[in-house]
């Protein structure tokens, strides 16, 4: 960065990218299907992710039916229950949340927010989506292969993942690993785009410290994902070889159903290290974009700049870096060297500090704001509650000795659903209600939206808050039926039934949301270019929805940060990032 006095260069015209750089679709096919336009790719990513997410949602209904009313539904047996939890977890974490935040929000928002015409490698970007789609199809195909999908749990721990005591041992696990490998390849293509676009394609004046926090979140998450996904790739490839070629990377000498196998000497713990070296950053890969989105929603709808922007940026970077040295807190009771516990408990609890700072800054942004309780704002508030709740229970599980009784119980299930299920989904919904008008030019229906919000938030909270207490009681996770167990009182079964009913209601509310998405596309209120009065660049496009190339003839010039709300002395309560300073426009220096 060169420190140039601002005034001397204020009159520089926008840097215009040569026209040849931009890809132009020539037919309907290349415009809407094999499109290289990041906005189209974003919508493709989002629709695919939400479709496969609906499958995972249905799986969760089936699981809740079984847990709430064990024995009532004869079509769900122990094997299927394990297959449901595995597919539900894998889809939600990787194929829905990761793909939606980075492939969906990232593709749509990065170019618009940094003032670029498109991603820097549009062709690779297109490939990324199609490889992702292939991964999703391979994953979905496991429902139809002999033996069904794998039931190894989303962590896919060997040895059981590839042994015959686990459902889906023949085809399910192989296709699951293949699908993961494809996903990682596809993601890497997309991820290179997001990173390089943020680094290279920012428009004139868009310094890093002027980026909206959404871009910071997605950018940091992408960098982390690029570095962490190889760990999953290595683990998947090695597990696949153990399964297909009979190597013994992870497989020790063991007896399978009374028969000694040919495996020997391998280390199941090695897999866990590799898996969680990916798996923990993955939590933040999902959380950081949510952090960014929530920051922008709160700031816009409270008409106030985000409080402590610099601290927010530093916290994102710090969390991103720290999240690579905490992975083994998932393995406190795995049988690894117990002395690792001291190190990983310490790093894990340290990461709570930057995370807490983010929470403080969100709520401090509300202080003395002008809070519009729009639907995105409601979702942002719900995000804070669920995230704080889930984050605080993380302090239980991160503190090694507290983790010992709670690990592998429903407490863990409740914790991670709250912190990386419900909270990020709140950010997704808030983001969709917020940016839908930019994407489609129409507002989502308000009444349906409020209904969707209240049912989803209160319902999900009613599912997962009480679940912690089942875990405290000692109910283990991944049990299709807790059965007759002396220490579990009958009331626990009632609680399970209550949670199941709540979960079903929440599930159906999502159908209302899907209906709203489709209905509003045709019948929604016309939105105009900037319905929320937002200052960041994506709302300043000449057309809504943004046209091909985003910015018309000239790229915008950025004169300020993304949070100039309620600036004293300004005419309105927001100043768009590309609005020239008053003294410049007065002089007419801007061409």
């Amino acid at each position, binding site marked *: 960065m060169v420190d140039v006095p601002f005034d001397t260069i204020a009159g520089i015209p926008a840097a215009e990218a040569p026209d040849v*750089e931009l890809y132009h679709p020539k037919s309907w096919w290349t415009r809407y299907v094999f499109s290289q336009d990041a906005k189209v790719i974003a919508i493709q990513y989002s629709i695919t992710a939400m479709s496969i997410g609906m499958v995972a949602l249905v799986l969760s209904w089936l699981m809740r039916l079984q847990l709430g009313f064990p024995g009532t539904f004869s079509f769900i047996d122990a094997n299927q229950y394990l297959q449901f939890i595995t597919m539900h977890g894998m889809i939600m974490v990787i194929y829905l949340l990761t793909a939606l935040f980075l492939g969906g929000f990232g593709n749509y928002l990065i170019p618009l927010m940094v003032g670029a015409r498109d991603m820097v490698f549009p062709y690779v970007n297109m490939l990324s989506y199609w490889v992702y789609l292939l991964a999703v199809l391979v994953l979905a195909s496991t429902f139809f292969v002999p033996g069904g999908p794998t039931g190894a749990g989303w962590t896919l721990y060997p040895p059981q993942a590839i042994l015959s005591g686990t459902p889906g041992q023949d085809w399910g696990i192989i296709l699951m690993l293949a699908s993961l490998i494809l996903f990682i390849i596809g993601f890497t293509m997309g991820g*290179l785009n997001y990173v390089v676009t943020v680094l*290279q394609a920012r428009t004139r004046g868009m310094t890093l410290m002027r980026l909206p926090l959404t871009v910071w979140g997605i950018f940091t998450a992408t*960098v982390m994902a690029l570095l962490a996904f190889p760990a999953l790739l290595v683990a998947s490839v090695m597990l696949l070889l153990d399964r297909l*070629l009979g190597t*013994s990377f992870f497989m020790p000498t063991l007896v399978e159903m009374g028969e000694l196998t040919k495996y020997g000497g391998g280390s199941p713990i090695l897999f866990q290290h590799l898996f969680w070296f990916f798996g923990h950053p993955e939590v933040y890969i999902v959380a950081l974009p949510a952090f960014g989105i929530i920051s922008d929603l709160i700031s816009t709808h409270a008409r106030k700049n985000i409080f402590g922007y610099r601290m927010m940026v530093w916290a994102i970077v710090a969390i991103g870096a720290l999240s690579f040295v905490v992975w083994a807190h998932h393995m406190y009771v795995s049988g690894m060297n117990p002395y690792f516990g001291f190190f990983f408990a310490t790093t894990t609890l340290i990461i709570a500090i930057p995370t807490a700072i983010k929470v403080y800054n969100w709520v401090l942004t509300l202080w003395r704001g002008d809070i519009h309780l729009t639907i995105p704002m409601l979702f942002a508030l719900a995000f804070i509650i669920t995230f704080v709740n889930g984050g605080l229970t993380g302090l239980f599980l991160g503190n090694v000795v507290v983790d010992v009784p709670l690990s592998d119980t429903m407490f863990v299930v409740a914790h991670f659903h709250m912190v990386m299920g419900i909270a990020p989904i709140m950010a997704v919904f808030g983001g969709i209600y917020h940016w839908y008008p930019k994407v489609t030019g129409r507002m989502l229906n308000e009444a349906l939206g409020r209904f969707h919000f209240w049912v989803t938030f209160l319902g999900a909270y009613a599912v997962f808050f009480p679940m912690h207490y089942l875990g405290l009681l000692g109910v283990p996770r991944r049990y299709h039926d807790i059965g007759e167990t002396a220490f579990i009182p009958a009331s626990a079964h009632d609680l399970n039934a209550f949670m199941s009913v709540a979960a079903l209601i929440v599930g159906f509310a999502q159908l209302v949301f899907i209906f709203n998405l489709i209905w509003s596309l045709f019948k929604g209120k016309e939105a105009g270019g900037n319905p929320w009065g937002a200052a960041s660049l994506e709302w300043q496009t000449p057309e809504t929805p943004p046209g091909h190339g985003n910015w018309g003839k000239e790229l915008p010039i950025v004169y300020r940060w993304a949070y100039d709300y309620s600036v004293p002395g300004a005419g309105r309560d927001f100043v768009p990032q590309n609005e020239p*300073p008053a003294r410049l426009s007065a002089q007419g220096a801007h061409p």
Partner: protein
Amino acid sequence: MSVIVLFMVGIAAIAGWWLSQQRLTAKPWLEEGVSVDLREESTASPQAAKIGLGVFLAVVGSLFALFISAYSMRMNMVDWRTLPVPALLWFNTGVLVLSSVALQWAYIAARRDDMDGIILGLLSGGAFAVTFLVGQLLAWRQLNAAGYFVASNPANSFFYLITAAHGLHVMGGLVALGRTAAKLWRGAEVKQVRASVELCAIYWHFLLLVWLVLLGLLTGWTDNFVDICRQLLS
């Protein structure tokens, strides 16, 4: 896992250095007007492609660091029997070095607008790389013939796995190289391929570096280093 942690520390150092150049302590709300940063005037695609390659190399580096981590943890187990390294690997290494040299040649030629040099460099570089791959396959066959099967010992499994992963990356490089050559074939001018040639050369050098590290690992030269790494974390 210490190898990958060390790798990540390296990446973090680079990222930290870069971030330290970005005025992250600036107070953006006080700064109104246009400010210009270093990447001004360089948004054209070659620069972006180069940075893209850099990021990609970090990803590939992470991948191999993880393989090495897994290797160093697994080799600790009692059933590990180091396999004899086929002499052919030394020949292959030589060929890969030549391949890298040829690509460097092409890159230098591209900077001097020397079309013949580019073609010669690219073709010989490609040919050497193909020879390397064929040599690796032959090494596999030799090992197989000598009874070192992929599943018979983890050392063998890792040998096949790591060489295959490296070979796949060389093949990916050959695709990029082939596209550059095809551009030349269709009559592209030097300045149209200069960037691609440079990227190929960088990628080749990187793969050579990775190969040397892997070779050190497979032949046991780096055992001491691996031991030190292991002790760091356990």
